[in-house]
């Protein structure tokens, strides 16, 4: 195995790994500061913050010969015998000088800057900078201009790392951003008439190491040190991007991508990034209601657990729509509940909204047309319960609508949870299919023509309010934690199903996941603790037992 020596510490790297000095040093626990380098973008080696000393150790004599000048760590590949020195006076002085240079034109307006607290310029200056400002120059003012509908630029905070420019050229492929002017007067800008307007635009804000690019959606909403971070998965489409939900006091403030080499690399789309506002929509359903003569009457959840079962049992033949918004665990419990009420219950995948085709970008990122996160997970669960048609397909929404219109079907339980505040996912005509039933249970985030017909109207939980596992379009399963509590009065679906199954204590998603994994080959990969980046269900199935 090739050996790299980082500050005297020997570490081994993989035989066919191609690492630069920053990555190799990170393996040894040594952080080489850098601005312009990003693993997902091309190397420009222009910020010069990662300057280090490098050399090589002769394999036979053990003699170390160093390159006589500083080299950029991002541009210098490591191989067997590479020696990296990051703690010499030369390197320290160089970092202090780069920090000093970057601050010459920087307005240092941290108190009013949204980036403060997560700013590399702050962090690196604290660690590597010098305490005295030697340049007696008026810093520029904080000029601000919009570069697009969602992104704003604080021109003078920019340190010209050009990550954003490279992102629009290499990943989104739209190339809206550019560098204008020259020398210390250069600025990031857009071409006249071509604002930064693409479906991945928000990523440039995450890429910006300083406070230059701001997301208008998040700007001045919250200080970043108040935010708590939860590892989540985006529910916007079937790509299932890994995200971090940043929230404070049960309010979500922003979503950011979470690095996942199997799914979304470092990026998410704007649709997903801003797709959390429905969680705090005032029109959300927050009360379990049972239809009485004059509309819905609020009912305690403890009573829902018992009475819902009784109502459905009394009605007769049951058809269930298992929403692709539900987690694998919830779907499995729902099926178990349904079959315990009616052993012949008809199970189908709920409505799967699709908008357009999959859209791919030059950097390899794809936005899926299928706008639900867990169709494949739910289908697999239904397969476990034998809910498979003769041709091997799992019944879907259309089959459920057919069933609902049959005479012998007396009850339907539709789980939905679609993030459409106007309830437009189900139109009047579709909802009319459920008209003749004795008992219709609808579990949704918002009112819709369907919930208007319901005998039981139950509120659902949003994506950040539940924990569990989703399986994306590539059969990649990711477990995630609950970020925030749902609004008062809302039980996440899993809690209801757990109680309806008569289980004791609090709903335990990972316990349910273990149970599913132990009892099915299709989900065997979900056993044990999952890595934060998830597992591929198909790969694990091929492994011998």
């Amino acid at each position, binding site marked *: 195995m090739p050996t790299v020596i980082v500050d005297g510490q020997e570490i081994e790297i993989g035989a066919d790994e191609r690492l630069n000095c920053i990555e190799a040093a990170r393996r040894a626990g040594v952080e080489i500061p850098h601005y312009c380098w990003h693993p997902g973008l091309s190397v*420009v*080696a222009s910020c*010069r913050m990662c300057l280090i000393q490098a050399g090589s150790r002769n394999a036979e004599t053990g003699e170390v010969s160093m390159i006589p000048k500083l080299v*950029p760590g991002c541009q210098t590949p490591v191989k067997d015998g590479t020696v990296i020195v990051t703690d010499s006076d030369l390197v320290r002085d160089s970092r202090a000088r780069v920090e000093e*240079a970057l601050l010459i034109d920087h307005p240092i307006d941290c108190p009013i800057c949204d980036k403060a607290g997560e700013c590399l310029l702050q962090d690196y200056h604290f660690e590597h900078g010098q305490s005295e400002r030697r340049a007696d*120059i008026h810093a520029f003012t904080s000029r601000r201009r919009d570069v697009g509908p969602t992104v704003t630029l604080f021109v003078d905070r920019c340190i010209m790392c050009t990550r954003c420019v490279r992102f629009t050229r290499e990943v989104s492929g739209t190339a809206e951003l550019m560098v204008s002017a*020259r*020398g210390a007067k250069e600025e990031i800008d857009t071409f006249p008439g071509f604002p930064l307007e693409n479906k991945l635009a928000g990523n440039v804000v995450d890429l910006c190491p300083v406070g230059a690019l701001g997301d208008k959606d998040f700007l001045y909403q919250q200080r970043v040190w108040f935010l708590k971070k939860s590892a989540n998965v985006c529910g916007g489409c079937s790509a299932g991007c890994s995200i971090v939900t940043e929230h404070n006091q049960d309010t979500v403030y922003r979503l950011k991508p979470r690095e996942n080499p199997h799914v979304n690399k470092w990026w998410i789309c704007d649709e997903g990034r801003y797709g959390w506002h429905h969680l705090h929509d005032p029109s959300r359903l927050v009360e379990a209601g049972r239809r009485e003569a004059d509309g819905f009457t609020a009912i305690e959840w403890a009573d829902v657990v018992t009475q819902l079962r009784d109502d459905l049992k009394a009605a007769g033949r049951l058809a269930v729509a298992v929403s692709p918004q539900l987690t694998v665990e919830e779907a499995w419990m729902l099926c178990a509940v349904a079959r315990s009420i009616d052993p012949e219950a008809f199970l189908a995948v709920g409505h799967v909204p699709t908008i357009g085709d999959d859209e791919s970008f030059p950097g390899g990122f794809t936005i899926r047309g299928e706008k639900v996160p867990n169709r494949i997970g739910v289908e697999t669960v239904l397969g476990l319960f034998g809910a498979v048609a003769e041709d091997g397909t799992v019944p879907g929404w259309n089959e459920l609508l057919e069933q609902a219109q049959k005479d012998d079907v007396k009850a339907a339980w539709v789980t939905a949870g679609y993030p459409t505040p106007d309830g437009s996912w189900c139109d009047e005509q579709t909802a009319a299919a459920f008209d003749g039933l004795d008992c219709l249970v609808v579990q949704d985030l918002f009112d819709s023509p369907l919930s208007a017909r319901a005998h039981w109207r139950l509120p659902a939980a949003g994506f950040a309010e539940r924990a569990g596992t989703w399986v994306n379009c590539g059969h990649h399963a990711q477990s995630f934690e609950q970020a925030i509590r749902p609004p008062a009065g809302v039980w996440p679906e899993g809690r209801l199903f757990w109680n309806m199954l008569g289980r004791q204590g609090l709903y335990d998603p990972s316990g349910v996941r273990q149970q599913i994994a132990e009892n099915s080959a299709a989900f065997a990969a979900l056993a044990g603790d999952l890595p934060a980046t998830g597992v591929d269900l198909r790969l694990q199935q091929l492994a011998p037992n």
Partner: protein
Amino acid sequence: MTDLQTFQPVLLEAVGVEQGHSLESYRSRGGYAPLEKLLAEKQPPEVVEMVKSSGLRGRGGAGFMTGLKWTFLPKDHPGPIYLCVNADESEPGTFNNRILMEDDPHQILEGTIISAYATRASTAYIYLRYEYPQSWKSLQAAIDEAYAAGYLGQNIKGSGFSLDIYLHRGAAAYICGEETGLIESLEGKRAWPRIKPPFPAIEGAFRKPTVVNNIETMACVAQIARRGVDWFRSIGVPADPNNPRDPGSYGPKLYCLSGHVEKPGCYEAPLGITARELIDGFGGGVWKGLRAKAVIPGGISMGLLSEAELDTPLDFAGPGKAGCLGLGTAAVVVIDETVSIVDFLHNSCRFFAHESCGQCTPCREGTSWSLRMLERIRAGKGRLKDLELLAEIGNTMGMMPGSTICGLADGAAWPIKNAIAKFRDEFEEYIKQSNPTGYMETDPVPALPILSAH
């Protein structure tokens, strides 16, 4: 060492000749015959060997061995190889390429064709500086003549070798003279120099192997083909036997003499002529009977020679021994004793702050900070401490300390370093006189509003 008295200019032989820039005149002086002979008799590796053995070093500034550079091209490369001729002559004080392009464009074309043949390039680009409209006209006219005469195009003179030359006009930026900046600009991008490796010989223009050579280098190649390797090696300074890394400085060189001399101009002399010989022998001495205070040896980025150092030979090794960056473009600018060295340095810093491409932090901010410091010094707010800061910027900015991608920062640093090291007394005197109450101040002073920099 060639005797100056008997030295005959060859690169400039067309200067002053009636219609010297025409194909007819060039042919009458023996031009293009060597090309035809060489195409007929020599294989490309032999031409490379010829240039290599002549000891020709690049005339653009860095002085890299031209023949050696050609051998870095990959062998048996299946795709195209490009030859870029750097005519983005933007180093202050330099105008020798302009003379060649305007007065003897066919000499350049012949050299380019030979070089393309040697490097197996079938496309050559001449990257011309925007500010040279006359050169554009004369070069384009010469290219048209050469096409018509069959020296360019398909199957040149029945040799089976084909070459197209495109004349590309830049948009006026100093950084386009850096070879990878030139390539980026040629590709239609912002001229930000590339990180190396890969070097252009492996991956250059349009991601293909590329050689970048200076206009004067091309003229030298034409003369080597015409007059032979031995003639070329008989001129100049032989390699220092005590320094194995010195390849010598052979051949004639065009020196651009300007500034405070009686007769400024472009003069051809053997490499190794001293600055004093050049100023007194060709330039008629410092003007108005004054003494020289300092001399820029090869373009502003090479630093300064003091009057005491004027006997430094202007070959590739000479200026370095006197603390300068190198020979550069051999643009000798004379500064007489009436000039304030503070003003000189301010002007130099203003140029580099304006021309820094802005890619690397140390250069972008260092050039701009040094300019603003000099503006403050000239505004009567200088402090002795500023000289330490300036020297620190000068010592830490550039390719040599490793803090930048290209050599522009070295060029910006050298005048600062040299001026402060060689004229420190004058700086201190200036600061003490202009700021008698505050020159010893070391605390950060209140910031001045930004003065107009460019």
